[in-house]
């Protein structure tokens, strides 16, 4: 039941993504065509607010609500970040959705995205199967 808090957080995030039209293929196209501030403003301000608050959390050594120490894992840096990142970008422009919006689109009524989501699962599985053979 401790996970209920993440359900709530997910609901809030799903509402924001939908209301801000972040899950819209049209908005993603507008972004990749540099024709509106909308997506840049969202991503930019989200990163700034997130960075300031994470800085404060680290500076004040804030604990979690259960008293745990907050830890930040180092992100793996290798060729896969560039190759995989570019492959994801190709898919992002096609579907108009990154993984969060894939889920949100299904909820908001674009039910055909269930197939897109299933295909994303197959993509992740295929990466797992080929991982050792791919350049990293």
């Amino acid at each position, binding site marked *: 039941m401790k996970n209920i808090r993440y359900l709530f957080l997910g609901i809030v995030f799903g*509402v924001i993504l939908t*209301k801000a039209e972040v899950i819209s*293929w049209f908005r993603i196209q507008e972004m990749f*065509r540099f024709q509106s501030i909308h997506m840049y403003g969202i991503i930019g301000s989200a990163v700034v607010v997130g960075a300031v608050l994470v800085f404060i959390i680290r500076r004040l050594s804030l604990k979690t609500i259960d008293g745990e120490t907050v830890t930040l894992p180092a992100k793996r840096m290798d060729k896969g970040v560039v190759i995989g*990142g570019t492959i994801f970008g190709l898919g992002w422009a096609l579907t108009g959705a990154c993984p969060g919006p894939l889920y949100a689109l299904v909820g908001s009524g674009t039910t055909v995205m269930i197939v897109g989501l299933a295909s994303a699962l197959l993509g992740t599985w295929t990466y797992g199967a080929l991982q050792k053979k791919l350049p990293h």
Partner: protein
Amino acid sequence: MEWLKSPWPWYVAGPLIGLITPAFLLLGNKTFGISSSLRDICAACFPSGIELFKYNWRERTWNLVFVAGIVIGAFLSSQILSDGSPVAISDSTKSELMALGISDFHGLAPVELFSWPNLLTAKGFIFIILGGFLVGFGTRYAGGCTSGHTMFGLSYFQMASLVASISFFVGGLIMTHFLFDFLF
């Protein structure tokens, strides 16, 4: 209630999304990253003896609960918080998309590409099935997506996340400005 129902401007939505990363940290020392839920589902449903999926996914149930919340939130939002207005994209985007053959601008995504009847056409296959595959394959290869790298990783200045975010964008630009010419 009117302002709730109309689309939210970027300067409201962006800062709100910025609260998600610190919320994950303070709620239980968890990391924000949605593409990893795809890995968790693979690990839970079809691990197939693959190294990447050999871990106790049950310890990450919170992430599956979170993405279930996204589906519910999007559903509630579209049912009770929507005024049904079309996405107000810029005129230049609209005319460029019309030149590609997109004519229906209702809804969040064009029905010409994203609808059940069009799923098994060449366009439906490329935009939904191939597109989804590239999202799932690429995010795991890159170690994260727009949430794990751009929102979370950048918030504590991870070089990998900066490189990843730029790569995401480069891929999107290549698709939009070069490959779309062959798809429409």
